[in-house]
């Protein structure tokens, strides 16, 4: 059977590396270079379906964290049966992948300065974004020191932790607020729902442009199932996989109920 290029592909794990509480998987992949904010649907080629309650069944949507020629990197946190299996993959293991998928972040316009705001595992797409930008302010929030190890994936981050073990004590929002006073700030954020809602509200109040990389459980990742929708301010629903996962914050009333998490 000839490969027409649109099906789910079987790829090999090149490297697995622990980054504090997270796992960085490097995968051999010759697909076109992903844009920051894009994602792939991933499943382990073996053992998928073999966990508790015979899960996982569906592939998992995972943000692209890094890319170099022939190699794509994903940052994962084990939070359920799917991510647990993916985090356990060793070099040489096979996985099934569809991607890169979705709309990434838009580039800052002339005169705009990128301010990247990440929380927890949500820092993943910002790693690739920072590498593609000539200049950016990077602000990261984590629960604790093992998670804050992911800050090491960035060139020049400023960090806040909930427990004060690394960087500033408290929320990343406290780091963001003074940055918004500068002319031409453009915020790019990814993280937990509560953080994204706080970022959205703050940017809205200060009239600062803001793009949010959102998350929702997905079945397909390519616009087929309509399962991953989020409500927009115009009353319609957007498919996160197809219209997102990066959404202009101005299109949302709030980030809240109905915005889910990976498993």
């Amino acid at each position, binding site marked *: *059977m000839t490969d*027409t*290029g*649109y*099906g*789910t592909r079987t790829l090999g794990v090149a490297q697995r590396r622990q980054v504090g509480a997270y796992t960085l998987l490097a995968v051999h992949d010759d697909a076109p270079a992903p844009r920051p904010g894009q994602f792939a649907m991933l*499943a382990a080629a073996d053992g998928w*379906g073999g966990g508790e*309650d*015979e*899960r*996982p*069944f*569906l*592939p998992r949507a995972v943000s692209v964290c890094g890319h170099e020629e022939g190699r794509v990197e994903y940052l994962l946190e084990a939070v359920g049966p799917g991510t647990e299996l993916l985090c356990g993959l060793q070099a040489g293991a096979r996985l*099934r992948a*569809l991607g890169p*998928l*979705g709309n990434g972040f838009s580039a800052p316009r002339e005169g705009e300065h990128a301010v990247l705001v990440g929380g927890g595992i949500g820092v993943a797409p910002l790693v690739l974004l920072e590498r593609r930008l000539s200049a950016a302010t990077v602000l990261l929030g984590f629960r604790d020191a093992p998670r804050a190890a992911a800050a090491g994936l960035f060139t020049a981050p400023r960090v806040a932790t909930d427990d004060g073990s690394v960087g500033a004590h408290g929320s990343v929002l406290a780091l963001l607020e003074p940055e918004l006073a500068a002319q031409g700030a453009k915020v790019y954020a990814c993280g937990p729902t509560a953080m994204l809602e706080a970022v959205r509200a703050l940017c809205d109040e200060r009239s600062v442009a803001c793009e949010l990389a959102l998350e*929702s*459980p*997905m*079945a*397909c*990742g*390519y*616009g*087929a*199932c*309509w*399962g*991953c*929708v*989020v*409500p927009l301010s115009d*009353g*319609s*629903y957007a*498919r996160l*996989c*197809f219209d997102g996962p990066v959404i202009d914050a101005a299109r949302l009333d709030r980030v809240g109920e*109905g915005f*889910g998490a990976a*498993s």
Partner: protein
Amino acid sequence: MSVEFCGLRLAHPVINGSGTFDALAAARALGPGVEEDFPFAAYVSKTITLEPRAGNPPPRLWEAAAGMINSIGLPNRGVDSYLGQDLPRMRFTVTGAEGPVPVPVITNVMGSDAAQIARLFERCDGEPAIAALELNVSCPNVATGLDIGADPAELESVLRAVRPLTAKPLIVKLTPNTADVAACAAAAEAGGADAVSLVNTIRAMAVRPDLSGPWLGGRSGGLSGPAIRHTALAQVSAVCSRVRIPVVGMGGVQNARHARELMAVGAALVAVGTENFRDPAAGRRIAHGLASQPI
């Protein structure tokens, strides 16, 4: 491998279940290979209604043992938008034994009573780009609250009213959520259906992790995937024993073996649904397996 179905010549016997493959979105997300080497021998659209529908509030998905529950709520932009904007772009080719051939479009429609269905049939009947109609009867009757397709007498009566309004082949997509699916299939045949398709999803529910209520925004949903494969086999078998019109069998098909099992109990065509979510080229893989693998 080519097959005859309701007067249509199909390159192979594998099509998609309605609502499990958005061909236009797939082409944009995955590239032009989708349109040029389409995974299915016919393309069944998602369900189209007279008026636009936003669909159900999220969450819409639940991962189940060997399957999933969905409560999507049939979002679509309405028949005017479908006919005016989407249908003209649905030009796909599939590779058959004699090279690339056009993929017929089967338009799936739903109305909450005979009058709505009649208007949908009338709108679609004059469209040459529609090769056949599929009627989704898993819709509650606005007056009785019962699914039109769950009651044989109601189903036959609705079909008798609407069948004369279109010259196109008519497939009735049966609901599995009924006491006697074979009786419903017989009612569809008596009402003038040219084929029946089954199974739709099986009514199902998921409870929130903290036990505080139903997980899905639409409260209940439909179970699909390998979890329902043997239920589907039993229902397809019962229907094939009861009617003379061709039957499109579906439910949990993941590979050519599963497709062969449905055909062994009498299905003329096999539809792939949930497996498309795990691999957009699943239909192509299964069709190829049917053509090349011995039993």
